[in-house]
């Protein structure tokens, strides 16, 4: 067989560098500033995040008496550094381009290159639109067959809050929703002591995808609390914005959408390319995560999987 030669490898790296430059230029053009981050995190400082991640996915490093971990997530690093010394009235637009590390069950360490932005301190809706718009623009630039899934995490949060469940029950419930496992969801809900209207709303959740207007009507026929209604209203607003941009055929609403990292509170989205089987982009709003570091600041962002984009994005 013919093996990959140095020349080929360099060519590949050259192309990838060019792609990264293009995206960074787009970020800078929109007023985002580059931020360099440390590759190490202190395990204790990000306890709340690492509790949500599966322990076996974290790459641990032992330095002196501290247990350090290799950065698993850019957003968490940024928030941990900036929020404790936040100045009132500050508005920041930041971007990063570096690696995160994940350990797989067989002990292999994966190095994942991510490019992404964070928009901090700006009025929520304005920032949501800008960040979501930029994600659409980048996806569209490298493959016009892209699809983006959108939801607002307040919908599921509102529903779960109405159910008064234990931590374990919530975790199990979210896992079933995340796997669209209707059969076991029905089974599980029968074991919970839920009012009829809330159970119906829960079982209806997996059907809430597709055309937003129809889906809102459907959701309104079932149990709805103010948090859930707020989620729907925010999504309607976002839809009006994406319709105006002309991206409506790329945007799929799915209210049962959940994210791997559970710190989002508000808009959430995942973007895909045909023939790629990884998320190219994922992001959302995470104000309540900033609160864990001292103050609640408006915060929204996304990250791109640079390797997958390079591979599948026809660049």
């Amino acid at each position: 067989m013919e093996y990959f030669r140095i020349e080929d490898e360099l060519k590949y790296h050259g192309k990838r560098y060019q792609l990264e430059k293009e995206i960074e230029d787009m970020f800078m053009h929109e007023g985002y500033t580059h931020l360099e981050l440390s590759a190490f995190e202190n395990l204790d400082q990000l306890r709340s995040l690492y509790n949500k991640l599966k322990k076996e996915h974290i790459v641990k490093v032992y330095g002196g008496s501290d247990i350090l971990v290799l950065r698993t997530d850019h957003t968490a690093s940024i928030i941990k550094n900036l929020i404790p010394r936040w100045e009132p009235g500050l508005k920041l637009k930041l971007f990063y381009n570096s690696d995160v590390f994940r350990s797989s069950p067989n002990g292999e360490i994966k190095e994942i290159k991510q490019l992404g932005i964070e928009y901090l301190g700006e009025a929520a809706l304005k920032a949501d639109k800008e960040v979501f718009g930029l994600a659409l623009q980048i996806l569209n630039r490298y493959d016009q067959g892209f699809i983006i899934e959108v939801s607002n995490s307040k919908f599921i949060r509102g529903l779960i809050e109405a159910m008064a469940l234990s931590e374990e029950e919530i975790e199990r419930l979210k896992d079933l929703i995340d796997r669209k496992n209707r059969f076991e969801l029905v089974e599980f809900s029968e074991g919970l002591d839920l009012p009829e209207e809330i159970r119906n709303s829960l079982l209806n959740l997996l059907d809430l995808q597709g055309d937003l207007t129809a889906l809102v009507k459907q959701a309104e026929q079932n149990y709805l609390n103010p948090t859930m209604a707020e989620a729907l209203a925010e999504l309607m607003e976002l839809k009006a914005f994406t319709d105006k941009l002309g991206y409506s055929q790329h945007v799929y609403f799915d209210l049962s959408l959940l994210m791997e990292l559970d710190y989002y509170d508000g808009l959430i989205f995942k973007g895909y390319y045909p023939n790629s089987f990884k998320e190219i982009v994922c992001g959302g709003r995470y104000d309540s995560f900033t609160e864990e570091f001292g103050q609640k600041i408006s915060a929204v962002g996304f990250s791109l999987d640079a390797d997958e984009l390079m591979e599948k994005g026809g660049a």
Partner: protein
Amino acid sequence: MDYLKIALAKGRIGKDASKLFKGIGLCDSLDPDSRKLIFKDEKNKISFTYVKSSDVITYVQNGVADLGVVGKDEILERETDLYELYDLGFGKCKFAIAGIENQKLYAKDQVLKVATKYPKVTKKYFAARNQKIKVIKLNGSVELAPLVGLADVIVDLVETGSTLKANGLNVIEEMFPISARLICNRVSYRFKYQLITQLLSALKEMEA
């Protein structure tokens, strides 16, 4: 338009699945006993592939198949990032703990030695019950383990229990039921949403 690609686990689940899909009018040529591994239904734009049951998840996870039919046991034993869209209702059996009839469970006091093909399922089940165990992973003939003194008990799939009985073992505790599931790649689900929901409603109608 693209084909909807479905991976089926070889063996009994694959046979039941072929009956089911033929029953809703798909892919007449589907034949689980044939040496052929790929079957295409040109009219409905669906293709079926027979693969080893432990590979179905790999196929679906990597997107070479959009959907897969596989036992819940495989899903529980693997780390997966998939949708579980439907319980197909066949391939029913149970995970159970089994041991030698009328014998004291523990060879030594504290740690229970458990032989199984399913270390992940086993560890999780016993950990939730605060029982210390030592898992011995086997790839087949798990029933032998207690007989030859390799383990105190076994954790395995039990359907009728006749294999256990033939080897002088019986079920000590039923763990949970298992059946065949329709799994789906997350990205395929979005790009082929229409086709997949059509298939799901056909399956539901069939059941009703």
